[in-house]
């Protein structure tokens, strides 16, 4: 039966593959985790949407746990998360916006139409700051702790499910810390 090992090899290789295919079904290859988790926000200075003479910097986010949400008026998926973001804002969650490669007039109009959950919005017209953050699309949402350190990055529409699964546990453990 010496040959049986060779004859069984294809089945074994296949079984191995199946295990990983099975694992793969619960993963999502499109969503990349941020490599900057645990690092402070990069330095940036973005003109604020409502008042272009003032700037949004990491300092604005310090002192509290907050969200930095990347959005644009050309991003149709961003509309989907707007209701949820407004809910979070009403519950007291500080949300800052990064208006990504957008026209300011269109952005302002979009907020009128779909609602504004943001305390402040920085306009990143060229997308350079987004690159520094490792952003690769819209919408994305970053969880920032009170020291300005990036704790988590969510890709895609922010909904109840990912909020409960990914954000709340992090926020609770962060609140316990100095």
């Amino acid at each position, binding site marked *: 039966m010496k040959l049986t090992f060779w004859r069984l090899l294809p089945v074994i290789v296949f079984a191995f593959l199946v295990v990983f295919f099975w694992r793969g079904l619960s993963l999502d290859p499109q969503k*990349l985790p941020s490599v900057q988790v645990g690092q402070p926000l990069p330095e940036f200075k973005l003109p604020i949407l409502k008042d272009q003479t003032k700037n949004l910097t990491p300092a604005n986010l310090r002192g509290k746990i907050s969200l930095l949400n990347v959005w644009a008026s050309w991003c149709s998926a961003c509309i989907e998360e707007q209701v949820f973001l407004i809910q979070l804002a009403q519950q007291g969650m500080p949300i800052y916006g990064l208006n990504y490669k957008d026209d300011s007039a269109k952005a302002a109009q979009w907020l009128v139409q779909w609602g504004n959950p943001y305390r402040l919005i920085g306009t990143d017209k060229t997308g*350079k700051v987004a690159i520094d953050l490792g952003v*690769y699309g819209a919408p994305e949402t970053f969880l920032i702790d009170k020291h300005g350190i990036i704790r988590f990055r969510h890709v895609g529409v922010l909904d109840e499910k990912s909020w409960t699964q990914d954000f709340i546990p992090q926020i609770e453990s962060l609140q316990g810390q100095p």
Partner: protein
Amino acid sequence: MRLLLLSFLLIVTSFSYANSRYPLDTPRQEAQFSHLLKELRCLVCQNQDLADSNAGLANDLRDQVYDMVKEGKSDNEIINYLTARYGDFILFNPPVKALTALLWFGPALFLLLGFIIFWRTCLKRTII
């Protein structure tokens, strides 16, 4: 036939990404630029490299790489800059680390296995 001759005679240089939109000072920089664009992935269209992709982000990243090449930064510096922000995923060519050892040595392993099977089949002149 004349067309063939003409076509060949008019070949200027080997595969190059001569880029009038991204003019660079030296051929070395041009080579560096086109090389890097082929090594980096477009994260939006995840199976295209920065040279080929038409996505907005690809445009921005191309501009970024262009600026850095123009400044005279080395391949390593540019790659580190991008992987610090996007992780190893932005590299099309997985780095040869322990993690990718199987990937790079795998083909050789398969070939070895194949040769062993071939040898055993042809050298064993007996009934199975």
